[in-house]
């Protein structure tokens, strides 16, 4: 027996996320140009670097990646539960609020309205709206899970439920206006680090756990590994925030605890990765672009989560912290790993929702290779440049300004790589648009 899924909420969340992905990446490219030509779009307050950077980071995280993952959750959860979504009406209302939040965020940020805490910049009334939207999302997902047909829940559901809980607590506690001084910094990084670790990681992993078996046709490699991976990440991740302030004005014991737990993160990551590779076995060479995105995403997840624990070690942190190296690292997590998982999910889910193939598989292949090559150029140039920068900072006789000038060639390569990444996402959006549009025009023909 098959359940008929309406998928209205899922579909519209995905459309929105794909469009907004373009906006955020265009802002990213603008920033990359400003690194090479600092007077580019100069003299306009709303387009100043400090104003658009926050639109880029928050836009990528909440406007693209979280929106895409919510859309994919609205798609996968009913299927894993073997029942219809709890309420499509509630879902569409959630989308309405979400779109309003993101658009209001762009306007408020451009006008300089910010709380000036990393990833918590949204002003208070937008914070409240996010909380309301998240509760509505939670009701819909838990409501669907509650009336599931199968008692046993698949691993993707654990991660999605965990994310809903983690995000709620992180968001509310992180936003309380009661902290000051170095404790404010510590709470900020308790939130900031876990925004990646307990929102985007578990959502991305949930999607990979669902779409890797689906796209390859292989069964999940190991149930036991998925249990170990889930509970170790639930236990270990929350302790890591302070590794962002190593050598900084916080207690040494707190730094050391963060380092110990950061290194321990190799356990959940390698467990999950082993499970992904096990599930991908035999499908490496025959994969289409969906499998390519999943495979590359898995490799980037492995690499970024190897870098992370290593960065926390004092001897490494001394060199790379505060440099451009970290920008490469952050983009490997958010773009290379979790965006790749979400893109693969969209390529898989959209044809199922619309009941027709993607408009062009060739464009999908181009999308993958341009994203892949563009990202490598972006990250490798920043890793090399950032490492040199870190070493130069260790010699105080080298003037700071000279270490800025030394970055020029790397910033230039980064800018062109960004152009590749941008082009790739234009192809993605075009492909999605054509897939949707063809169906709509056919519908119209059918109706007339």
């Amino acid at each position, binding site marked *: 027996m098959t359940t008929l899924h309406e998928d209205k909420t899922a579909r519209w969340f995905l459309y929105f996320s794909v469009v907004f992905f373009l906006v955020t990446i265009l802002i990213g490219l603008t920033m990359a140009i400003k690194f090479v030509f600092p007077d580019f779009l*100069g003299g306009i307050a709303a387009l*100043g670097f400090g104003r658009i950077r*926050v639109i880029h980071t928050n836009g990528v995280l909440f406007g693209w990646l979280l929106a895409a993952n919510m859309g994919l959750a609205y798609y996968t959860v009913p299927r894993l539960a073997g029942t219809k979504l709890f309420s499509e009406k509630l879902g569409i209302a959630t989308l309405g609020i979400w779109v309003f939040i993101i658009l209001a965020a762009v306007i408020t940020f451009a006008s300089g309205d910010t709380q000036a805490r990393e990833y918590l910049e949204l002003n208070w009334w937008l914070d409240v709206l996010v909380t309301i939207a998240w509760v509505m999302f939670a009701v819909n997902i838990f409501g669907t899970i509650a009336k599931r047909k199968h*008692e046993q829940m698949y691993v993707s559901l*654990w991660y999605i439920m965990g994310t809903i809980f983690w995000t709620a607590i992180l968001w509310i506690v992180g936003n309380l206006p009661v902290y000051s001084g170095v404790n404010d910094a510590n709470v900020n990084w308790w939130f900031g680090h876990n925004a990646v670790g307990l929102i985007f990681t578990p959502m991305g992993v949930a999607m990979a756990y669902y779409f890797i078996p689906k796209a390859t046709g292989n069964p999940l490699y190991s149930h036991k590994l998925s249990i170990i991976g889930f509970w170790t990440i639930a236990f270990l991740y929350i302790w890591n925030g302070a590794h962002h302030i190593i050598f900084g*004005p916080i207690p040494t014991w707190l730094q050391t605890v963060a380092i110990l737990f950061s290194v321990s993160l190799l356990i959940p990551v390698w467990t999950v990765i082993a499970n992904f590779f096990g599930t991908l076995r035999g499908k490496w060479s025959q994969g289409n672009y969906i499998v390519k995105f999943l495979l590359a995403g898995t490799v980037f997840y492995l690499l970024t989560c190897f870098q992370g624990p290593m960065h926390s070690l004092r001897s490494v942190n001394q060199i790379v912290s505060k440099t451009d190296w970290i920008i490469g690292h952050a983009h490997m997590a958010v773009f290379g790993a979790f965006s790749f998982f979400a893109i693969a999910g969209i390529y898989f889910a959209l044809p199922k929702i619309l009941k027709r193939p993607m408009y062009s598989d060739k464009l999908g292949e181009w999308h993958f290779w341009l994203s892949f090559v563009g990202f490598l150029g972006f990250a490798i140039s920043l890793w090399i440049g950032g490492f040199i920068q870190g070493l130069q900072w260790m010699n105080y006789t080298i003037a*700071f300004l000279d270490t800025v000038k030394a970055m020029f060639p790397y910033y230039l390569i980064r800018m062109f790589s960004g152009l590749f990444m941008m082009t790739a996402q234009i192809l993605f959006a075009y492909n999605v648009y054509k897939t949707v549009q063809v169906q709509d025009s056919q519908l119209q023909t059918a109706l007339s």
Partner: protein
Amino acid sequence: MKFESKAVLLVLGVAVFMALGTYFTMVVPLTDESLFTPTKDAKPYTAVELKGKEVYQREGCWYCHTQQVRNLLEETQRYGMGEEETFKRFGVRALIQAPPSQPGEYVYDKPHLLGTRRVGPDLARVGGKYDNTWQFNHLRDPRSTSPGSIMPSYTWLFDKNGLPTEEAIALIAYLQKLGTNIKWREERVEQVRRLQAKTSTQENHSLAELKENN
């Protein structure tokens, strides 16, 4: 009873783990008095400085400038004073290291502005490093004072005649306040003076001894 079939059990387990890590890494520091006791010289921001801090936040200065001298030799050297600077301003030739940042300096910061990235240099010790004229010129046209800089020109903080607006004046007042919650420039120069005086007295003594012996 397995968590795979009980959603409540799963969420409960997740909550316990989250509470554990949060307690030790967040609640314990929140109750640590040494983290919110002001330093001896710490003063709350004046109204103008506070307004400047708001401009600093609004323009996102903190995305490219950290405010923490890390507890590392290369940072206390880089953000301290070089020989030329100490000679020009205090008449003393010495390389003076900046103190590493301490929790007590930040107690009046809400929100904190420690930052994470140094596209430009750290600003935790910038107060008193440059005069106001330099700061205004740098803010309006960074490349006029620092060729090769990639900082944006904050032209919207200046009027048609290129004069600083109230906001620019407040921002520079805020920058001049940074790092002054420890009076390190004056104190360390004084230390050097005393040390040099002591050394020269010792030199005189040994010279006198030498003469007597001859």
